[in-house]
């Protein structure tokens, strides 16, 4: 088998090698499959490695050869091996959302992002990755199929809910990955695993074929080993889709021209407590680094940002309780027999949903029930509006808002499972981007040394609606190789 330096490989480098013929897409896929064989047993990043990986790669090789012959441009992602989160549909393959209720569900169609990657660009899909059940969690500990371990320290979590995708990329079990992000589910695992992760502007990537969790919050986004790679994937999957009426076009938001050195705002009032010392240190270093590179740093106030997390934990469960109603044991998924037709629902949902999913369904049912609706759901939506207004105001004077992605590096497996609120606090810096619809990018910017292990720390850059470009440019200035 051909020896390929997977550790230092990026999409751009692989594309160059595939074009020049240093290695073929089949050889590249074989190298990743061998790595998966070695490491996935312990890490549990993939729930399933597809049985047609080499066929897909062979198809890419043929396409590359044909395009070369015709002297045509080879798409950047042709032959590039991807990991796909288990809540994104790939026609004919199992898509379970790491839930028992969909254990044997076979996707009946391709998600738009899959069509774009596979059919339009010739990417190779390696398999489906582990996650918190229906994307509800921050550690993959809520998967019905066991936890994903962090490649940097296997006693720690990979983060979540897209922990499998982040771990697969960090451990060189794929070259790029897709995740979904409802409250930080791409960015927090990216931070924990030392890779780049982005939650794009709400509506910029089609969600047709991704399982809905919180429909006013959900976005699909890319994972990459470099900011450039993440940008390449984002460019390939974005765009309007008639199958998702919430998608936006490139002119939905006013175009912002790229500034040479954008102004970076830091809401210090929100960052003065609760940060792990290593995260605080990385934040300070990142600010110095940006200053050195000529960025102007400005302290800003986001008066209502502290309400973000409690607002999120009202709106999200409300939407969850509605979206999860579709699982009835009739149309698809697990069926358990009850005494009658209604009782079938009770039995099927009891057998199919795990503890966190039940908890959120019940919480959502509560905040939407008559008598409590005004105090919770209505009020949360009002507070969501003032938080969004705060950001709009901040973006009148700054181009980027900088915070850490998570308050600490990866925590130990089991450390937070007993207390749901402690787990929810992990999302404190990430949920605002989902509530406001703003794009946010997590970039590895430092490391903590704990128990003799180097744990990555990500910084989060939030930008104006539709202005991913500024985030990518600034991200390139702060990223470090982990």
């Amino acid at each position, binding site marked *: 088998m051909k020896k390929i330096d997977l550790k230092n490989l990026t999409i751009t480098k692989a594309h160059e090698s595939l074009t020049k013929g240093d290695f073929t897409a089949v050889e590249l896929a074989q190298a990743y499959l061998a790595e998966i064989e070695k490491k996935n047993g312990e890490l549990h990043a993939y729930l399933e490695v597809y049985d047609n990986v080499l066929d897909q790669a062979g198809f890419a090789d043929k396409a590359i050869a044909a395009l070369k012959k015709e002297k045509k441009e080879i798409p950047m992602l042709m032959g590039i091996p991807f990991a796909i989160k288990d809540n994104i549909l790939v026609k004919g393959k199992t898509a379970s959302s790491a839930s028992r209720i969909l254990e044997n*569900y*076979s996707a*009946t*169609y391709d998600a738009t992002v899959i069509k774009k990657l596979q059919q339009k660009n010739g990417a190779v899909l390696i398999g489906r990755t582990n996650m918190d059940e229906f994307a509800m969690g921050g550690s993959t500990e809520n998967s019905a199929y066991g936890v994903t371990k962090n490649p940097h320290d296997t006693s720690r979590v990979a983060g979540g809910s897209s922990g499998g995708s982040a771990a697969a990329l960090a451990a060189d079990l794929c070259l790029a990955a897709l995740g979904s992000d409802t409250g930080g589910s791409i960015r927090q695992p990216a931070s924990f695993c030392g890779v780049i992760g982005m939650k794009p502007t709400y509506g910029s990537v089609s969600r047709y074929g991704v399982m809905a969790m919180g429909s006013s919050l959900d976005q699909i986004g890319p994972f990459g080993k470099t900011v450039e790679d993440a940008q390449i994937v984002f460019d390939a999957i974005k765009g309007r889709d*008639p199958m998702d*009426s*919430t998608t936006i076009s490139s002119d939905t938001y006013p175009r912002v021209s790229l500034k040479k050195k954008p102004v970076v705002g830091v809401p210090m009032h929100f960052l003065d407590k609760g940060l792990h010392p290593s995260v605080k240190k990385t934040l300070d270093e990142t600010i110095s680094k940006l200053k050195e590179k000529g960025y102007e740093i400005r302290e800003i106030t986001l008066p*209502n940002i*502290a*309400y973000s997390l*409690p*607002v999120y*934990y*009202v709106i999200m469960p409300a939407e969850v*309780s509605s979206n999860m*109603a579709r699982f009835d*044991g*009739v*149309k*698809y*998924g*697990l*069926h358990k027999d009850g005494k*009658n*037709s*209604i009782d*079938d*629902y*009770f*039995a099927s*949902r*009891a057998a199919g*949903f795990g*503890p966190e999913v*039940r*908890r959120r*369904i*019940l*919480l959502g*049912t*509560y905040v939407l*029930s008559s008598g409590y609706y005004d*105090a*919770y759901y*209505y*009020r*949360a*939506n*009002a*507070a969501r*509006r*003032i938080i969004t207004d705060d950001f709009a105001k901040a973006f009148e004077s700054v181009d980027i808002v900088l915070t850490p992605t998570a308050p600490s590096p990866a925590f130990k497996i089991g450390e937070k499972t007993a*207390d*749901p*609120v402690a787990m*929810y606090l992990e999302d404190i810096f990430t949920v605002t981007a989902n509530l406001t619809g703003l794009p946010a990018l997590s970039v590895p910017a430092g490391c903590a040394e704990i128990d003799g292990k180097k744990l990555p720390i990500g910084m989060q850059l939030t930008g104006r609606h539709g202005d991913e470009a500024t985030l990518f440019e600034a991200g390139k200035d702060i990223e470090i190789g982990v």
Partner: protein
Amino acid sequence: MISKKDIENLADLARIKLSDGEKESLAKDVDSILAYVDQIKAAPIGDFKPSAGAVKNVMRDDAIITTPAEDRERLLDEAPKREGDFVAVKKILSQE
């Protein structure tokens, strides 16, 4: 305080069967989460008027689309119980 009875009502609305032990632990969990989210009561929301916001409704054409037979088969095959071209459920009307 959320009681075991409250949890039973919510589970009934959400159509999930719960064990007795789970009712107890869920009452405790939901209570602690509600205590946390109660902070929103202090948010200065002013004279908020609910609206759909910046998004507008997008409708597709009301056109007849014929689903290819192969797609129909795939969809029907995912149903736990199938009878011919129908998804099968238990009888919901009885003769009395």
